[in-house]
C-alpha cells in the first residue's frame, strides 16, 4: 500500500495534482515539473531518515513503557487478559452474566451462567471495575468474593465485563498467551503487552503515510504528524497495554488512510474492497469503530460525487460486502446471545453505578465533561490513576488552542488563496486535498460525538473512544501549527514541536509514571513478599478505579 501511494505521488509523475476540468492544474503541474522533483526528493529523503529514527525511538520507548507501568494497571487489563485466556484455552468467547438469570440461579443454588475472572487475578482487583477488592483480607484473599449486596440487592462481583467486546484482538493474542503459559502472570501479561507494540508501530506508520500522501512536498508535516502520534502519551500507553483499543486505533487509521487514497486516486474496485476489509476488521477489533461507517460514506460521496448516485451505490456495495462478511457473524452472535447487538443492556443492569451522565446536548456544552475528556486525552492513565499538574495541562491546552486557531487560519487562506509571493503549495490545496481534509475533520467530529453519545448511556465514557481518529487529529493540529509558523522558520518550528513532545514524555515518565509504579508496588506488598514498602520510596498517592468515588466518574 505504501508503494502504491509512493509510486502515484512519485516525483515527476504529477499524479498528486489531479486534472481539473479545463486542465488548469495540469498546466501548472507542467510548469513546475523541473522544480518540484528536487524539492520533493529532498523532503522524502529527510522524512524517511526521520521516520527510521522515530521508529527506533518509539519502539524503545514502548519497550520501556511495558515495564514502567505496574502489571495489570491499564484500563481493564485484567478483563482483557482474562478474555485472551478464555479464548486461548477454551476456544470460545466469554459471556456476560444476565443479572436476573444470575439472581435466579443463585436463589436455586445453581451455577450461574456467565464468565468471571479467575481467582489468580484477584491480587490485581484494584485495577478492575466491579470486583469487590480486599486482596489482603484473610478470607477474600484466598476466596475472592463473587457476590456483593448493593442496597440489599445481590449483584455479581468479578464478572467478565469485557465479554461484549469483539474477538479479533483476543484471537491475535491467543498464540502469545499460549507461548507464555509456563511463566508467572506478570510475565504473561508483559508478553501480551509487548505484542501490542506492532499495532502502535502500524499507527505511527500510517500517520507518516497519511502526511506524505496528503502533502508530499511538506517536510514539516512529514516529521511532526508521525512524531505527534508516536509521542502522544495516551496512544503510547494504549500501545503498551493488554487491550483492544490499540488494534482499533491501527485499523481505523488504515481506514482513514485508504479514504484519503480513494479521494486522491478514485475509489477503484480494488481500493473499495480493501476499504471494506479494513472497516470489517476494525468492527471486529472494537465496537467504537462503528464511527468508520459515516466517515467512509462521506469520503465516497465526496470522492465519487453526489451527482453520480449509481457510482456511489456501486462503491457502497464493494465496501459493504467485505465489511458485512467479516462483521456480521460477530453481530449475529451478539444478537443471539444477548438479544441486542452490543450487550449494553446487560452491562447497564450489572453495573448499577454506571448511569447516564446527561442528555446529548447537555453533555456537549458541559464544561466538566469537556475538561475531563481533555485530561484523559493527555494523562489520567487507565482508570484515572495518574493526574497531571494543572500547569502542564495548561501548557498543552495553549498549544492545542494555537493548533485550532492555525487550522482556522489555514482554512481561510486555502479558501481565499494565499498571497502569490508565499512559496507554499500546502496553502494551495487542490480539490482532492480539500476533500481529504474535510473527511479527516469529519472523522474527528464523529469521534468526539460518539464519546458524548456514549455518555448519555454510561458515566464511564472516556476520551480513548475517540483515539481511533488520532492520525486525523494529528494532521489537522500540525497543519494548524504549521500555518502559524513563517515558512523560513519551519525547520526550526518542526524541531521545537518534536522537542516539546519529547520533553512531555520525559516529564511524564520521570514525574508521574515511575513514581506511580513505585507507589503501586509499595501498596501491594503481597506481590513482592514485602521487600518494597512505601516508606522506602518517593511515591505519589494513587487511586485505582475502585478507589474513585463513582460519583466522580465521567464528570
Amino acid at each position, binding site marked *: 500500500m505504501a508503494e502504491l501511494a509512493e509510486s502515484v505521488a512519485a516525483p515527476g509523475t504529477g499524479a498528486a495534482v489531479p486534472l481539473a476540468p479545463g486542465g488548469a492544474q495540469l*498546466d501548472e503541474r507542467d*510548469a513546475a515539473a523541473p*522544480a518540484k522533483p528536487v524539492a520533493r526528493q529532498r523532503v522524502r529523503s529527510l522524512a524517511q531518515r526521520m521516520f527510521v529514527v522515530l521508529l527506533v*525511538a518509539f519502539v524503545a520507548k514502548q519497550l520501556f513503557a511495558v515495564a514502567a507501568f505496574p502489571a495489570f494497571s491499564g484500563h481493564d487489563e485484567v478483563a482483557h487478559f482474562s478474555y485472551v485466556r478464555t479464548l486461548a484455552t477454551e476456544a470460545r468467547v466469554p459471556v456476560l452474566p444476565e443479572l436476573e438469570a444470575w439472581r435466579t440461579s443463585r436463589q436455586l443454588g445453581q451455577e450461574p451462567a456467565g464468565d468471571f475472572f479467575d481467582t489468580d487475578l484477584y491480587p490485581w482487583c484494584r485495577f478492575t471495575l466491579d470486583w469487590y477488592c480486599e486482596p489482603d483480607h484473610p478470607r477474600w484473599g484466598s476466596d475472592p468474593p463473587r457476590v456483593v449486596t448493593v442496597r440489599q440487592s445481590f449483584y455479581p462481583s468479578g464478572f467478565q465485563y469485557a465479554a461484549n467486546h469483539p474477538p479479533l484482538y483476543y484471537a491475535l493474542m491467543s498464540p502469545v498467551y499460549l507461548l507464555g503459559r509456563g511463566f508467572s502472570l506478570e*510475565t504473561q501479561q508483559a508478553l501480551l503487552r509487548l505484542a501490542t507494540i506492532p499495532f502502535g508501530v502500524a499507527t505511527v506508520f500510517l500517520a507518516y503515510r497519511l502526511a506524505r500522501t496528503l502533502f508530499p512536498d511538506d517536510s514539516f508535516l512529514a516529521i511532526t504528524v508521525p512524531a505527534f502520534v508516536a509521542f502522544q502519551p495516551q496512544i503510547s500507553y494504549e500501545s503498551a497495554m493488554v487491550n483492544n483499543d490499540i488494534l482499533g486505533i491501527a485499523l481505523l487509521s488504515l481506514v482513514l488512510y485508504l479514504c484519503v487514497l480513494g479521494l486522491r486516486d478514485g475509489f477503484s474496485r480494488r481500493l473499495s474492497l480493501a476499504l471494506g476489509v479494513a472497516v470489517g476488521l476494525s468492527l471486529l477489533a472494537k465496537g467504537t469503530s462503528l464511527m468508520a461507517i459515516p466517515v467512509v460514506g462521506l469520503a465516497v460521496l465526496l470522492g465519487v460525487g453526489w451527482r453520480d448516485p449509481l457510482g456511489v451505490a456501486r462503491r457502497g456495495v464493494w465496501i459493504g460486502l467485505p465489511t458485512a462478511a467479516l462483521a456480521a457473524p460477530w453481530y449475529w452472535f451478539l444478537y443471539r446471545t444477548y438479544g441486542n447487538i452490543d450487550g449494553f443492556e446487560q452491562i447497564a443492569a450489572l453495573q448499577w453505578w454506571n448511569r447516564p451522565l446527561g442528555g446529548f446536548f447537555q453533555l456537549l456544552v458541559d464544561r466538566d465533561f469537556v475538561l475531563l475528556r481533555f485530561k484523559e486525552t493527555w494523562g489520567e492513565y487507565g482508570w484515572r490513576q495518574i*493526574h497531571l499538574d494543572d500547569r502542564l495541562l495548561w501548557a498543552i491546552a495553549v498549544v492545542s488552542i494555537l493548533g485550532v486557531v492555525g487550522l482556522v487560519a489555514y482554512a481561510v487562506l486555502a479558501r481565499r488563496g494565499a498571497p502569490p*509571493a508565499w512559496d507554499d503549495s500546502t496553502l494551495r490545496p487542490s480539490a482532492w486535498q480539500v476533500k481529504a481534509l474535510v473527511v479527516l475533520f469529519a472523522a474527528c467530529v464523529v469521534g468526539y460525538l460518539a464519546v458524548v453519545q456514549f455518555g448519555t448511556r454510561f458515566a464511564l465514557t472516556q476520551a480513548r473512544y475517540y483515539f481511533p481518529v488520532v492520525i486525523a487529529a494529528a494532521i489537522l493540529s500540525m497543519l494548524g501549527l504549521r500555518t502559524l509558523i513563517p515558512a523560513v522558520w519551519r525547520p526550526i518550528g518542526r524541531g521545537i514541536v518534536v522537542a516539546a513532545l*519529547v520533553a512531555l514524555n520525559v516529564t511524564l515518565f*520521570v514525574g508521574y509514571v515511575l513514581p506511580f509504579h513505585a507507589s503501586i508496588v509499595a501498596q501491594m506488598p503481597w506481590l513482592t513478599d514485602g521487600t518494597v514498602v512505601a516508606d522506602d520510596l518517593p511515591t505519589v498517592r494513587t487511586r485505582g478505579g475502585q478507589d474513585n468515588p463513582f460519583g466522580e466518574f465521567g464528570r
Partner: protein
Amino acid sequence: MMPGGVPSIDDGKSAVVSGGRDAAAVAGGDRTETARVEDQDRQARRPPPWLGRALWALVMVAILGPLLVFPVTLGAGDDVGDAVRLPAVLRSFDRTLAATGWGDAARVFVWGVAGLALLAAFALLWVAFASEE
C-alpha cells in the same frame, strides 16, 4: 500563476517571481533557471544553518538540565507527592523492578531500552532541526 510564484507559461499574463525579480526571461521558458533563482531566494531568507544545531543543543539542556539540577515534584493536585531528585526516582524504579522478580537481565534490558529511547529521541531532534527542506 503557479503555487510559489512560479509563472505559468500558459496564462498569457506578465509573471512576477517572488522576491521581485524580473521574470520575463524565465517566463520565456527556462524553468530550471526559475527553480534555481527561487532556491537562492529561499536560502537567503532562511535562518543560518548553525541555528538549528544550536537550538538542538539548547533543547537537550532544557529537557535534561532541570531534571538533573532541580528536584522533581511528584504527582499533581490532591495526589501531589514529595519533591525528590532524579536519581532517587530512578533508584526507586530500579528497586521495584528488582522486586517484581524478572531478574537482572530484564533490569539491564529495561534500562537499556530507556537509554536507547532517549538517544533516539535526541537523534530525532537532530534530524527535525536539520535546516534542509
